[in-house]
């Protein structure tokens, strides 16, 4: 998910703070005797431009990446080897999503299309047109018969996957939509945008059910439902990640410590035995918080540029992260301390 490619150029690139020891495997803080112990295991290189999104397959065996180089790459999670490269998009790709059984991959691109890829065949099987500007985010519903997407045309769209048709166009926001997600049973959609609003929609009727807004209206980068869909995790460009109870419209947890002022950085929930919040940062590190205490448990050092795309493994303590232009690598971090 690469923030506003056009506008991006105009932004003064954040100074690459010279890392004292960029390849340090064990960051000095926090207290090293406390979990987690994520260590860099693989460096995956292949992308020639910024990596915009990373997603683990539902069973965790594969990692998909996409980026400004118009390519989708599939990697083996456990060996770090490249498996496939899918090409077809005419512009950079901002987001990807896996169908529930790992059979298909959907990609959202600046060429205004969403494409669906059959991974067994390794080919494009659907190209869905309708967005009038860059498509920035995409996600499947749990049954994978619907897709939701958001883009720079400020709409949220719901798509019939099998038919490749647009089912609903929600005039959702007044600025580019940066992130969309379905809840665990697919009845709700959450969307957030650069207008600083987080809205919850009824999938069936397309009605807006709730709007969450923080006092200062910071630009929203990324949103997702918690596994039980009682909360939404929102990262905003005031360098803060918040966990909202959307029933009561109250923020129940706040995670700070990282830097996020410019890009739409992903925030993820690692829901294995221990529960962490994981996010990239513009200081080139990857931050890991304890879900409950909101303390930074570990900061992963290694990347040489802003870490934008982050993914957490569905069942194991594995984090994938990717850096922007000056870095271009995808790194896999494993916590093997309990194994």
């Amino acid at each position, binding site marked *: 998910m690469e923030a506003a490619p056009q506008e991006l150029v105009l932004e003064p690139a954040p100074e690459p703070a010279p890392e004292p020891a960029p390849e340090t495997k064990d960051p000095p803080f926090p207290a090293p005797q406390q979990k987690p112990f994520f260590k860099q295991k693989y460096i995956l290189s292949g992308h020639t431009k910024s990596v915009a999104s990373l997603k683990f397959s539902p069973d965790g065996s594969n990692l998909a990446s996409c980026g400004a180089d118009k390519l989708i790459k599939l990697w083996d999670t456990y060996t770090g080897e490249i498996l496939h490269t899918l090409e077809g998009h005419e512009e950079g790709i901002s987001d990807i999503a896996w*169908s*529930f*059984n790992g*059979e*298909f991959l959907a990609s959202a691109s600046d060429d205004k299309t969403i494409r*669906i890829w*059959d991974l067994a065949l390794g080919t494009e*099987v*659907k*190209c869905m047109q309708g967005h009038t500007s860059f498509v920035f985010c995409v996600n499947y*519903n749990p*049954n*994978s*018969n*619907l897709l939701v997407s958001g883009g720079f045309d400020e709409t949220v769209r719901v798509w*019939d*996957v*099998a*038919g*490749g*048709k647009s*089912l609903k166009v929600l005039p959702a926001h007044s600025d580019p939509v940066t992130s969309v997600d379905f*809840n*665990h049973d*697919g*009845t*709700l959609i959450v969307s957030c945008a650069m207008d600083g609003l987080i*809205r*919850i929609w*009824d*999938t*069936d*009727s397309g*009605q*807006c*059910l*709730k*709007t*969450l*807004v923080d006092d200062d209206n910071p630009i929203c980068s990324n949103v997702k439902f*918690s*596994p*039980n*869909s*009682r*909360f939404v995790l929102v990262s905003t460009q005031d360098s803060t990640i918040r*966990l909202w109870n*959307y*029933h009561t*419209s109250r*923020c*129940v*947890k*706040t995670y700070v410590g990282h830097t996020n002022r410019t890009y739409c950085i992903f925030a993820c*929930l690692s*829901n294995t035995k221990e*529960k962490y919040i994981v996010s990239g940062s513009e200081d080139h590190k990857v931050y890991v918080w304890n*879900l*409950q205490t*909101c303390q930074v448990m570990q900061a992963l050092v290694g990347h040489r540029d802003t870490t934008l795309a982050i993914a957490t493994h569905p069942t194991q303590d594995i984090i994938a992260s990717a850096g922007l232009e000056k870095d271009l690598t995808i790194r896999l971090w494993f916590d093997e301390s309990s194994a």
Partner: protein
Amino acid sequence: MNESLINPFNITHPTAVQASLFALGSFARFDPSGRFVGVGRFDGVATIWDLDTKSAVRWLDGHVKAVTSLDWSRHSRYVLTSSKDWNVIVWDLASICDPPQRHATIRCDAPVSSASFHPRNSRIVLTLLNTGEVYLIDLRKAPHRGRTELFEPEGDEDEGQGQSSRRYAMTVARFDPTGKFVFVGTSGGYILVFNSRSKTMIARHRISGGSGSLKGLDFAKNGRRLVTNSSDRTLRQFIVPRYLSSGEFLEQELEPTHRFNDPINKTAWHAVSYSPDGEWLAGGAADAAMHKIYIWDISNDGQFASTLDGGREPLAHLHWHPSKSSIASTTNQGNVLIWHSPNAERWGAFAGGFEEVDENVEYEEREDEFDIEDEAEILRRKKEAEQEEVDIDTIEGESQIHEPDEVNGSVIGGDEDTRWADEDADDDVVTWKMRIVMDDDI
């Protein structure tokens, strides 16, 4: 999940048509998850429609004559179709090929009027032939395997009627929601109850006052109430008696708790269906010129609630959604109307921290409302509020979605009938999901 945000007080009956599916069907049935409808057609094809996308996702092409009924296994993996071509076909929607292959074919000795799965095991099938016979067909391995006719034993003196105790043709056959019993309606207006395991008749009920031939049967989900549709154009609701597990034969006249009919037009009924909570009853009128659904409020002593008008195409069939306030009604032109109860759009939802009120409220300012507070203090309080642990895993209300433990007053799982049904279980699991098949037109 979305219900808690929409409106907790809108448990009601459907009021408006949400979508019309051009399905060419003669009837449509929701699956137990409520995601699909299965449509049976005159040309022998059955189609599966995805209600999220309102489009057909599977074609089950196996019969050479009209499909007469369709049933779903409890987690929607298997679909059963019966047809006038003397066959019952079981389809496996989890099969990797498209169109799906048939999982089993049951050949009968006459056109099949209806067939259904046992509620706990899709390897037990109940079939009703149009010759008026009912068979319980067990597709499991030996010793279960077999085909047993369910019949009214002859010989016992029929209340002195002597020779005239001829057997009536069976016109409707259904499992009750527990699957322990088979309820059979006859052309003579009797309800016969069989034990599914022993296949013996355990009760015979005459409908008090007589009713004419039985055409349809539906159970409320908890299995305690039963509604019948009969040729005298009246729907009757009964309380289902408790049947003894000792197997003693029960001969009892049943007195309906309610009778529903159309007092003005005296129309007959094509179909009848309970709402999932059993609080509403929908009757599809056999009106020759109109598509009309009558709704009665069972929780309000069976009072007539409303008529739904579905336009000019007469109604052929209807079925209530397994969990929502929604009905699928089929027109005689083959279109399937999906009814829902729409919610008014709440515009207040678009503004954060904004709440709509129905009536004006005099606002009373709190004593400290506009006091200037120390920012550090606010921050501290906010921090404190965030100390509380959050639970991101437990899904609310998850447990009540799945089969209730107690149906019809007896605990499931413990008794012999249930164990019998669960032996050699099918592989229809909760976690099963249907694959997405892409349309070819790229």
